[in-house]
C-alpha cells in the first residue's frame, strides 16, 4: 500500500476534466471499455485521510450536525424582504437541495413579524376562552398530556412566488418557490380539547389565535377549520418545535397560509364576530383589478414546480444521451395531489409525469419524469398539478385575467424553467404581454 500518497492534494476537477476528454476520445476512437484510455481516479487509488486515522469519538456531538461539507445548504434571505432589520422578514428553504417530502428542521423556512421569540417552556401557558362553558389554561406539560396525533403537512407563506406577478425576478428556485417547507407535526386536535370546554356551537363562529411574540401575532380562524383538522402542535420531525417554528407550541391549520399557523401560541378565543387583526387586513389580502381585495384567503391552492434541474444545480455537466431524472414537488392546501403533467415547450403540450413516494393530503408530493438528454436541446420545463378537489394550476394569463398583477399573495400559476443549449437553467414566464382578457 502506498500510504504516503494519502496526503496528496486530490484535484477532482482535474480528474473529471481529464476523464471526460479521454471518454470523448474513446467514443470517437476504438473501444469504450479500453481501460488504458482512462486516467485512474486518485479518489480510488489512494487511501483517503479519513480512512487512516481515528474519527471523532461518539462523545463529540451530543446533538448531531450536518457534515461540514454541506455548509452551503442554508436558508437564505434577500434585502428585498428585510423589514425590521430582518425581524419582520423571511429566510427561505433551499428546495433545490431538498430530498423527499420532509424538510429538516434546520432548513425549514423562517418567517416572523417581530423576530424569533425564545419562550421559556416553564413559563409557557395556553389560554382558551370566549364562547365556551369552561375556559382553560394549560401548562406545556398539561398540554402534552392530551392524546397526540402526528401528520405530515407543508406550511407555505402565501407570498411564495408573490414577487413575480409582473414578471420573473429571481433566477433561483430557492427564492422563486422556497417560501415553504414540509414536516411531520405532532400535537393535539383543537377539537379534542374543545370537547372538554363546551363550545357554544350556536354562537361561536370565529376563533382568534394569538402569539406571545413581540408582534403578538394574531389571526381570525373560521370555526369550520377549528372543528376539522386544526392542531395545536409541539413536535416537528420527531423533536420539539424549533424556535423559528414557534417553540414550544404553534397552531397548525393544514394547507392554509403559514401566517395563520400562529407561532409561540398563547391564546385562543371564540366569538360570534371576526377580529380584523393587522395581518388579515393590511397584509395577506389580495387586491383584484376591481379594487376589491380578497380577505380571509385561507388555503394555498394547488401548485407545483420543477426542482431539478434548477438555476442553482443545472445541466451543464450532462453529456449527450445521458438519462436523467427531472424531479419536482407538487402540493395543494385544498386536497391531495392526483396528477402532475410536464411540458417541455412551456405549457403548449403536456405529458403525464409520475407521482412517487407517499401521496398525502396537504403535503409535499414528489413527482418524476425520466428524460434522455440531447446535447444542445433547448427546453421550457413547465409542471402542472391537479388535486382531488378538481383544482388545476392556471396558466399565467388565466390567473392574471382574474387577479390582475397587484395581489401579492396566492400566485399558483404554472412555473417555467428554461434549459438553454449549454444546459444552464433560467427562470422565465410564459405569458402574453399586457395580459389576455378572459383567458
Amino acid at each position, binding site marked *: 500500500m502506498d500510504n504516503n500518497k494519502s496526503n496528496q492534494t486530490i484535484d477532482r476537477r482535474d480528474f473529471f476534466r481529464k476523464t471526460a476528454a479521454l471518454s470523448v476520445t474513446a467514443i470517437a476512437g476504438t473501444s469504450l471499455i479500453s481501460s488504458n484510455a482512462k486516467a485512474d481516479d486518485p479518489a480510488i487509488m489512494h487511501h483517503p485521510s479519513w480512512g487512516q486515522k481515528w474519527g471523532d469519538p461518539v462523545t463529540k456531538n451530543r446533538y448531531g450536525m450536518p457534515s461540514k461539507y454541506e455548509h452551503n445548504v442554508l436558508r437564505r434571505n434577500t434585502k428585498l424582504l428585510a423589514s*425590521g432589520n430582518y425581524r419582520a422578514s423571511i429566510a427561505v428553504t433551499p428546495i433545490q437541495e431538498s430530498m423527499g417530502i420532509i424538510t429538516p428542521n434546520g432548513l425549514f423556512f423562517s418567517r416572523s413579524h417581530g423576530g424569533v421569540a425564545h419562550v421559556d417552556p416553564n413559563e409557557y401557558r395556553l389560554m382558551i376562552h370566549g364562547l365556551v362553558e369552561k375556559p382553560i389554561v394549560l401548562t406545556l406539560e398539561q398540554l402534552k398530556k392530551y392524546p397526540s396525533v402526528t401528520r405530515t403537512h407543508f406550511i407555505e407563506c402565501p407570498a411564495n412566488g408573490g414577487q413575480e406577478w409582473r414578471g420573473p425576478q429571481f433566477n433561483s428556485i430557492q427564492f422563486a418557490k422556497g417560501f415553504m417547507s414540509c414536516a411531520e407535526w405532532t400535537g393535539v386536535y383543537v377539537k379534542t380539547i374543545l370537547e372538554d370546554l363546551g363550545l357554544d356551537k350556536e354562537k361561536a363562529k370565529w376563533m382568534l389565535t394569538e402569539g406571545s411574540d413581540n408582534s403578538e401575532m394574531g389571526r381570525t380562524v373560521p370555526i369550520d377549520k377549528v372543528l376539522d383538522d386544526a392542531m395545536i402542535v409541539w413536535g416537528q420531525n420527531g423533536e420539539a418545535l424549533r424556535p423559528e417554528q414557534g417553540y414550544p407550541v404553534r397552531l397548525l391549520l393544514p394547507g392554509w397560509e403559514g401566517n395563520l399557523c400562529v407561532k409561540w401560541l398563547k391564546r385562543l378565543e371564540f366569538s360570534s364576530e371576526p377580529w380584523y387583526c393587522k395581518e388579515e387586513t393590511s397584509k395577506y389580502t389580495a387586491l383584484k383589478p376591481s379594487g376589491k381585495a380578497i380577505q380571509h384567503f385561507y388555503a394555498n391552492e394547488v401548485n407545483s414546480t420543477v426542482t431539478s434541474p434548477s438555476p442553482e444545480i443545472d445541466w451543464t455537466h450532462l453529456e449527450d444521451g445521458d438519462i436523467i431524472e427531472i424531479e419536482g414537488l407538487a402540493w395543494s392546501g385544498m386536497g391531495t395531489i392526483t396528477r402532475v403533467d410536464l411540458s417541455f415547450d412551456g405549457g403548449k403540450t403536456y405529458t403525464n409525469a409520475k407521482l412517487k413516494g407517499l401521496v398525502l393530503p396537504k403535503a409535499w408530493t414528489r413527482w418524476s419524469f425520466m428524460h434522455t438528454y440531447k446535447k444542445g436541446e433547448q427546453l421550457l420545463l413547465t409542471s402542472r398539478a391537479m388535486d*382531488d*378537489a378538481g383544482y388545476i394550476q392556471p396558466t399565467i394569463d388565466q390567473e392574471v385575467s382574474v387577479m390582475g398583477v397587484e395581489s401579492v399573495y396566492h400566485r399558483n400559476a404554472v412555473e417555467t424553467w428554461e434549459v438553454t443549449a449549454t444546459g444552464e437553467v433560467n427562470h422565465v*414566464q410564459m405569458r402574453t404581454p399586457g395580459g389576455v382578457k378572459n383567458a
Partner: protein
Amino acid sequence: MLNLNRKFLVTASTAAAVALLTTGCFGETDTAKQSTITKASIDGGISYPVVNNKTSAYYVNPQVAAMAPKIYHGRVPTANELKAWDKDVMPDGTGLPEGSGSVEDGEELYEAKCVMCHGDFGSGGGGYPSLSKGNAYELQETLTNNRWHDPEADGPVRVFGSYWPKVSTLWWYIKDGMPHPASKTLNDDEVYALTAYILNINEFEIDGEEVDDEYVLDREKMLKVVMPNVDGFEPSIDGPNGLENVRTYYANPKNFGAIKLAPGTTPCMENCQEDSVVITRIQNGGIKDFLPPMSDERDLPQEKEVAVDPVKVYDETCAMCHSSYLSPGSAEWSGYLSRGMDQVYANAIHGTDGGMPAKGGTSLSDKNFKTVVDYITTGKTK
C-alpha cells in the same frame, strides 16, 4: 357543526368524488374497498373526515373521541388572568379601553419613538411600512390601479388610510406590537395620541370634523371613524351570515382565480396556451443579493482558527493514556525532549508505532495541537 359535515361522500374513486362535489351533489353512494371519503371545506377545497377510524392515510385511535369530554388536563383561569391576556380590540369597540390623546401629543411621541423607522410624516423607509401617502380618501381611489396592461403605470397605494378596513386594527396593533423593538410599552392615552396623529397625517374626517392639529381623539370618537376602504374587501365576514358568505365565495373558483375541472375531464394536453404567449425573461438581472451568496459547492468552509485550551484538550483526550506515564511536566519527558522539540511535535502530529495516535485522535490544527504538546511536556501553559 355545519350541515355538510353530517353527510359524507363515499365513492370508489377520487375522480367520482370530485364529480359529485363539483356538481354540488352531496350524499352517499356505494362504499368500495378502496374508498376515498371527502367533504367540502370552507376554503373551497376538501377535507377528510374520520370514517372507520381513518382519515385519508392516517389511522386514529377511536378511544380518544369517546373519552375526550372527560380529559381536561388544565385549570380554569382566574378572572384576573383572563383580564390580563384578553386585550384584543374588535371593530365594535369590544376591548377598547377609555382614554384620549391629542394629535399634538401623538406627533411628539411619533418623533421620539416612531420616526426612525416609519419616516417623516409616516412616509416609510428602511424596510418599514409607510403609514401615510397623503389624503386617504383620494388614495383609496388608486386601489383600482393595476399594472397588468401597463407595467409603467402607477400602482395602488395600500397604506393604513387608503386600504385598511377598520381603525380598531391600528389601535390594537400599536398597543400590542409597537414600537417594534420595545412593544407593549405604550399606555392607552399614548396609543390614542399616536392613532390621532396617524389619522391626521392621512387627512381623516371623523363625523364630518377634520382631524386637524388641534384634534383630541377618545374612545367615543374613534368608534365613529369610517375607513375610506371599509367596503373594499370580499367576502363580507361580518354579522350572522359571515361564515356562510365565506363558504359561498370559495365555492366559486372564479372568485379567486382558480380553475376547477368538471367531473371526469382530462386536463388539456395539447394546444393549452394562447398564441400570444411569449417567453418573458428576468429584467435587468433581477434580484440576486442573496445572503449568503448562492452556492452548491461541497468544499470545506474557511474555518477561522480559534485557540484551544491545552489543559481541557489534555483532560478530555490525552489523560486516558498520559496520566500515569508521560503525564504533564513529568520527568519521563526528558529523554524525548533531548532529541529536539521538532521530533516530539512530529511524533505527536503524525502518531507513533508506540501507540500514540495522530494528534491524539483530535481534529485540531497542527498549530493548536502543538500548544497541547507544549503543555504536556512542560506541565505549564503559556
